[in-house]
């Protein structure tokens, strides 16, 4: 670690990553976005995923056969419900981070919002895909323009819009402010998604959980455990994505500094001949 340079390495040095320095750094875990805490969290998450998969696909009983229930298709809900719940959490974090950035101008909150938005986008896209797969055997169609589905698709578009605004070329503060304004809109949209099954006539079923859960026993435990594991996975992804955004910000800042220094050096070199007084002239005077 001590042999690593104290300045940003140029892009061309990324090609050769198998140097002795990198190997030493890899060995003590100092390269990358991982840390001791995230490695423990990752191991817990992997173990939890294995147990949740066993509970959902093997241990828990199927729902009654249609038309009274969903049969084995109910096993899709053990992944669908946790994923959509974490998508909502991600949207909430993005809105919180955006509000806090607009209020405090804190880079920490800006990065939190950005990292959370991308993880939420992945989870929301998965929600739509899994939901479509669930809908085909349940409703007989992959997609219907139902209030819940349409508002969820709108939520995905809003998240993509947030990420697109972050990639627009602009000064860091301007970019953060623009994206924060989009980020503030996420939680109101999540509220619309959540209430859509009650506000409009909907094919989508109402809430399975809540104050009076509609499932019990091992099915309820399996679903709650899957939600716990999804929370662990979301936390692991969020922490690593946060650190990745931090690295990107550091590199952008260093590369900007380097470009300014280069321009100043070029300007100084270009103006040098005009400021030099010829020796013969000065000598004669």
């Amino acid at each position, binding site marked *: *670690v001590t042999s*690593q*340079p*104290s*300045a*940003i*390495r*140029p*892009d061309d*040095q*990324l090609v050769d*990553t198998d140097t002795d320095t*990198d190997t030493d*750094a890899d060995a003590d*875990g*100092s*390269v*990358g*976005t*991982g*840390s001791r805490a*995230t490695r423990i969290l990752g191991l817990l998450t992997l173990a939890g995923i294995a147990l949740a*998969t066993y509970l959902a*696909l093997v241990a828990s009983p199927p729902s009654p056969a249609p038309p009274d229930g969903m*049969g*084995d*298709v109910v*096993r*899709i809900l053990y*992944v*669908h419900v946790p*994923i959509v719940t974490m998508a909502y959490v991600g949207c909430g974090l993005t809105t919180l981070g955006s509000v806090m950035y607009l209020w405090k101008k804190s880079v920490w909150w800006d990065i939190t919002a950005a990292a959370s938005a991308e993880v939420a986008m*992945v989870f929301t*896209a*998965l929600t739509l*895909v*899994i939901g479509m*797969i*669930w809908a*085909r*055997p349940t409703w007989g169609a992959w997609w219907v323009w139902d209030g819940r589905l349409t508002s969820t698709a709108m939520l995905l578009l809003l998240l993509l819009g947030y990420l697109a605004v972050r990639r627009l070329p602009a000064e860091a503060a301007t970019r953060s402010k623009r994206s924060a304004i989009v980020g503030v809109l996420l939680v109101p949209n999540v509220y619309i998604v959540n209430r859509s099954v009650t506000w409009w006539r909907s094919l989508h079923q109402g809430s399975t959980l809540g104050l009076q859960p509609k499932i019990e026993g091992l099915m309820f435990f399996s679903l709650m455990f899957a939600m716990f594991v999804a929370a662990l*996975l979301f936390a*692991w*992804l969020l922490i*690593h*994505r946060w*650190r*990745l955004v*931090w*690295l*990107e910000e*550091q*590199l952008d800042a*260093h590369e900007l500094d380097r470009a300014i220094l280069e321009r100043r050096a070029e300007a100084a070199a270009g103006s040098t001949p005009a400021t030099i007084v010829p020796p013969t002239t000065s000598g004669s005077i």
Partner: protein
Amino acid sequence: MSDWGYVSMAWGITAAVLVAYAIWIIVRGRALSRRVPPEDRRWT
């Protein structure tokens, strides 16, 4: 397609997407962190 076919498709796509996303984050993090001085990586 049977019920288990839909169940397998949903779980398979979820696993594939999340594994791919996690790998992308790790690989990109390792690539970028090599270009940033250790003192700027507060978590190490």
